[in-house]
């Protein structure tokens, strides 16, 4: 196995991870199977639906299309890595999805929230069209996107309010 494996390391949700795996192993499988982070979901496996969306160095990426060697030595944030000011608190985006009914079955939700995080980090006060562009890689079959639109708008307000209170809190997750 030596010839086909690599020493893979990355920071996942703030924690250094190191393992010997095949360079072509999908990040999706590393997360779900090797690290037991099942909040990242598997659905289309061709990068269309966004259920497996994670942040890699702050950028939203479909983890089903990402091989181990491509994301070695990066910082990876999954839904489990998102939280409010303390670890037990919800992130304002999560809070907004909860309040507005931005989910039903919840299976697309982790990916949807990760994409929202990337969107709001980039564009703190997105216009409607920017929200649609930011989330066009995430499919939801339950909500019809109404609750999601309302949640993202509300999340933008919450994040803006929070960053006005604390100048560092709105910055990308480290």
């Amino acid at each position, binding site marked *: 196995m030596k010839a086909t494996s690599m020493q893979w390391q990355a920071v996942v949700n703030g924690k250094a991870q190191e393992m010997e795996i095949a360079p072509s192993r999908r990040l999706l499988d590393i997360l*779900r199977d090797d690290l037991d*982070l*099942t*909040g*990242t*979901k*598997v*659905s*289309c*496996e*061709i990068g*269309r*639906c966004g*259920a497996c969306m994670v942040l890699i160095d702050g950028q939203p990426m479909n983890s089903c299309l990402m091989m181990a060697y491509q994301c070695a030595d990066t910082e990876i944030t*999954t*839904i*489990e890595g*998102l*939280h409010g000011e303390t670890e037990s608190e*919800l992130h304002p985006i*999560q*809070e907004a*999805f*909860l*309040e*507005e*009914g931005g*989910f*039903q*079955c*919840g*299976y*697309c*939700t*982790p990916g949807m*929230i990760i994409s929202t995080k990337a969107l709001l980090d980039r564009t703190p006060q997105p216009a409607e069209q920017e*929200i*649609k*562009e930011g*989330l*066009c890689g*995430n*499919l*939801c*079959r*339950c*909500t*019809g*996107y*109404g*609750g*999601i*639109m*309302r949640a993202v708008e509300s999340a933008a307000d919450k994040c803006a309010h929070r960053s006005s209170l604390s100048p560092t809190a709105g910055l990308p997750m480290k």
Partner: protein
Amino acid sequence: MLLNRENSGERWRKRRDGREKVTGELRYLTDMTAEGMLYGRVLRSSHPHARILSLDTSAAEAYEGVIAVITYRDVPGLNRFGIAVPDQPALCEDMVRYIGDAVAAVAAVTPEIAEYALSLIRVNYEVLETITDPLRALEDTAPRLHPQGNVLHRTQVKQGDADTVLQNCTYVVKEVYSTPRQMHAYMETEGGLFVPEPDGRLTVYAPTQHGYKDRMQIARILDWEEERIRVISSPIGGSFGGKDELNVQPYGSLLALKSGRPVKMHNSRMESVRAGLKRHPMRIEMETGMDEHGRLQAHRVRIVADTGAYATLGAPVLNFATEHCMGPYRLQHVDVEGVSVYTNNGVSGEFRGFGGNQAIFAMEGQMDRLAEKIGMDPWEFRMLNRRLPDDPGPLQQEIWRTNGLEQVMQALAQSSLWQRRTVDSALPAAVMTGYDPVTSASPVPPWIKRGIGSSLAMHGAGLGYGIDDPAGGRLSLNAQGQIEVAFSYEEFGQGLIATLEIMLMDLFHCTAEDISIVIGDTDLVPHSGSSTASRSTTMAWMALQRLKTPFLQAVLQKAQEMTGIPIDQLTTGEHGIWQMITEEGEEMSRKRVVSYREIAGVTEDKELTFDTKFSYPTTPDEVVGGHFLYTYAAVAAEVEVNTLTGHVKLLDTYHTVAAGPVINPMGFVGQIEGGSVMALGFTLTEDAVMEEGHYMTRNMDTYMIPGIQDMHTSLEVEVIEDLPENDSFGPRGIGEIGSVALAPAITAAIRQATGQWISHLPVPREQLIQRAGRWQQEGVSPR
């Protein structure tokens, strides 16, 4: 009332199951793993129709890491499944009838080995004629797919003499409508974990809409007592009808028992497309006649439904389509015949709307065509022909009378969207040009056309007359001092848990923490029927109405014994029983006198447990499948059509729904919005395309469900909550009503925008692309 967060006050509540969903902590059944677990994979048929000449699994069995291989020889019980008619082989013996048929299955130590082992299984097939067209299947020369032939089911409704009357009608509209093979496209594909327990039982962790039905079907396949199987079936990552039937359960169960180890199954999206249910493609021919005043006289309908290779609920779906193809209209002379036909195209089955979507699209299309023919406003035309509150149902059966139809019709007529519609639509293509309320500053290019359309639906709930439709539930004070309800309903995202919480808080004035909700586990819940046919909300509400009085009486009696306070001063409330004190001349005061936990502490096991069993209300008339309770909806939609590209964009959308009191406003809005966008896909983009029995659309890149960029510009949900005073059925389910009536409203809007009548879904874009000559007339010159 417009239903939204603002208008809902405190009833707009964060979902009880929400936190674990937004944090990703929730373990779906396909996220589960177990010590020593194997991975199961299924070998599907290579051909849509073939005879199996030989089947050799020896090389797969010998491969290192393969622990179990199963074929039909390993099925101890009935090698068939199907909710209504068990005609689908769990593992095929000698014939395959569609591309998703299972021939063998493997459990191995890694998914890669399991996948590889499938390639080692040798199957020799004799390829047979593939029946792709239901009309071909009905010919005498077609191969017979099942011993009884190729007809699964026929329906017929005859009243009066439609043929003769049609010949004498002043106006007749004849049209053939066709609808797509829509896929449920739940985000979580089918799967689960199958665990042989040390005590000889089997635990099945797999999503379904009816745990007890799965348990019965799995027991039948295994030839086991049902009680040996425990089905844990919630939470579910979406279903929409698609997980109602068995999917991976036979293979997971058989592999787990053969290997003696836990087995995980989880379909890839492509396998989900290949093996899973779809909505029935239907060809609906309608001929409808009216007199010179615009009164409907006669209606002739022929429905051909492509049910695919196996039955599942194909027959009840056809019954439903038959009942709904007459709409909420007065019709004296009716001649409807339906046939559901076996083909080698996938398997069609249960899907949100249940045959209503197709029938309503066709019937409402007729209404718009007839109205235009006589030059009437389409809504006035519907008003003229609507059923009256005392009229019988579409099958002449007695139905529960409400004013829902009148109310949704009035609400739509008064909606700002419908009032915005230009009445003068004599020149449909030109009428809407140049009017753009959003960007009125910039003139709209002449190839952009706008129109507004509407539609109407009455939609039956429950399974209908003559079909076992059990309901029930359990209410108790549990050992932890919580008011606990248990139902065999499932949470697939619709918000059942949130709705139950609100119902219990309403009934007992307690807090969310005082409540325990038990669902989705056949070891823990009573039989209360399936979560289908928009029935769970009504059934849960009716069960609680039956259970609350005996429960309250017993709990308050207990509190009286403990506190010495007379029962008539006691009531349930936050965290326990409260005493209401009214002293003369003073305001009422209240205090908590004993906690639920204290009561539980002195309660014998089951002493405060109450069960009820009943059935979903049905019509007294012996009309099989006929419904008793209906919900009513009216929809208006504005579209923008780009006649250069044929692209249709849904703009403002309005749904009004008469379904009794709203229990859970967030859930209600979510169901209508979600149903509406699912219907948008049905109308514009979705079709699981098959060629020669093979799927051409195999994943979400070619099977196009709406994305966020496709959603409406705005959507208003107006609810009508009134019910007759003597109504004892409470809130009606609304899981389907949002998805059944949007398509005809969109196609009516397209007609107004472009002059094109649409009779085929999804809307053929090429039909909307107009020749440049059209724009030249409107002052645009081609380069």
